[in-house]
């Protein structure tokens, strides 16, 4: 192997590495979750640590489960549990709410979401 060979190998490897990181690197769908009760932002948590969070709302406590970079409602003192049926939020910009309890969550930061908004 000549010096030129080595330069080519190293340069090619670097290029592959950079391209790999640029296009196939693990995406960060969202960086943090913002929790609100009524009109107030009550907390922001990074999504890289799993935890459960209680948020006091108008009717009682809504429980959020932050796990594997995602978040969802797992308990809420509402009647119809639409918030829990909403499922996991993954991407920046996604949001869910327990309207009766006036507790809402949004994912923020991270790579730009695929959609700027979702008509639901």
């Amino acid at each position, binding site marked *: 192997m000549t010096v030129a060979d080595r330069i080519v190998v190293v340069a090619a490897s670097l290029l592959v590495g950079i391209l790999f990181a640029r296009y196939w690197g693990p995406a960060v769908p969202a960086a943090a979750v913002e929790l609100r009760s009524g009109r107030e932002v009550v907390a922001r948590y990074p999504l890289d640590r799993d935890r459960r969070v209680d948020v006091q709302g108008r009717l009682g406590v809504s429980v959020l489960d932050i796990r594997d970079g995602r978040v969802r409602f797992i308990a809420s003192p509402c009647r119809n549990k639409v918030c829990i049926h909403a499922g996991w939020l993954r991407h920046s910009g996604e949001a869910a709410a327990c309207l009766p309890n006036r507790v*809402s969550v949004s994912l923020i930061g991270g790579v730009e979401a695929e*959609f*700027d908004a979702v008509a639901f």
Partner: protein
Amino acid sequence: MRLRQGLVAAAVVAGLAYLALRTPDPTPAQPSPVHRRDFLAMGTLVSISAYRGDAVSPEQAEQALGDAERSLLDFEHRWSAWGEGELGRINRKLAAGDTVGIPPDMQDLFGLAMEQTRKSRGLFDARIGNLVWLWGFDDESRYRSEPPPAAEVQAALAPLRGAREFEPGKPYGPAPGVAWDFGAIAKGYAVEQAVAQLKRAGLPDVIVNAGGNLRAVGRHGDRPWRVGIRHPRAKSPGEVLAALNTDGDEAVLTSGDYERYFEHGGRRYHHILDPRSGEPARGFQSVTVVTRDAALADAASTALFVAGPEHWRDIAARLGTDRLLLVDAEGRVAVTRALAPRLEFAPGIQYQVVE
């Protein structure tokens, strides 16, 4: 030499592994040009996204978003059917048998709603306030978990037959048994107003999304605003049927049976009530309308949902709207020929193009 090659190879592999597995820094180097605000208003989750150009500072943009939020909360107060605001006062007077003057700045929405009622042959009707109240869909703090008794539904419905129409500039009433509820048009109207307000504040590139009633103007920098249309049986909020790159001045509104509902006896009871039967309309899971005017699209998506798979074409023609995405009760997806070229369907979504 072998050893050295091995080392080089190992270094390359290690480098690649590091690049592949590292967690990219989530904080961008520059402040994002997109300002965003989520809040609860009008009984739903409202999101405002604004792409800030160079003419406006980040502080000015935040100020403008805050002002828009306050305007929407004022709007909610004014237009809630049974609250302490103006519409609540109007409905209480009507309930007492009075005739009520409609304030000048409310005439426009009353007029629009009445016009849509006529055009849709009553499939959209803002005079069903007592029916909506009976079902409890107007107030998330008293959602029901079983349908109201049939006799009460009929009692709320009876005064609607031949009910007095609103005439611009004239007092309304007496109209016993009639109460106004703008739930199926007000969010569309409100997002129109919010978009106009943000534009005046120097933010011409915005999306205002009030629970799926969405108005997008301008662009996201050098690309169009990209909007997802939610799957009506989505297992997560990110699950969409299709994507749409907006043309810079568009409203995308969906009426769906999944926004407010309860289940009872294995049946889903949702908030889109058929003014003829007094019951939740059957036949569609969701109807999406793409057009310019969000208020008209809001009323249209409701009327088309109520019309059902048999009759939506007739109502669409009467309302002058032809860009539609329809999901029927069995989950079959249909898209009109006028909208089909604009949509990118999600993988695995089967659909039919219809006239």
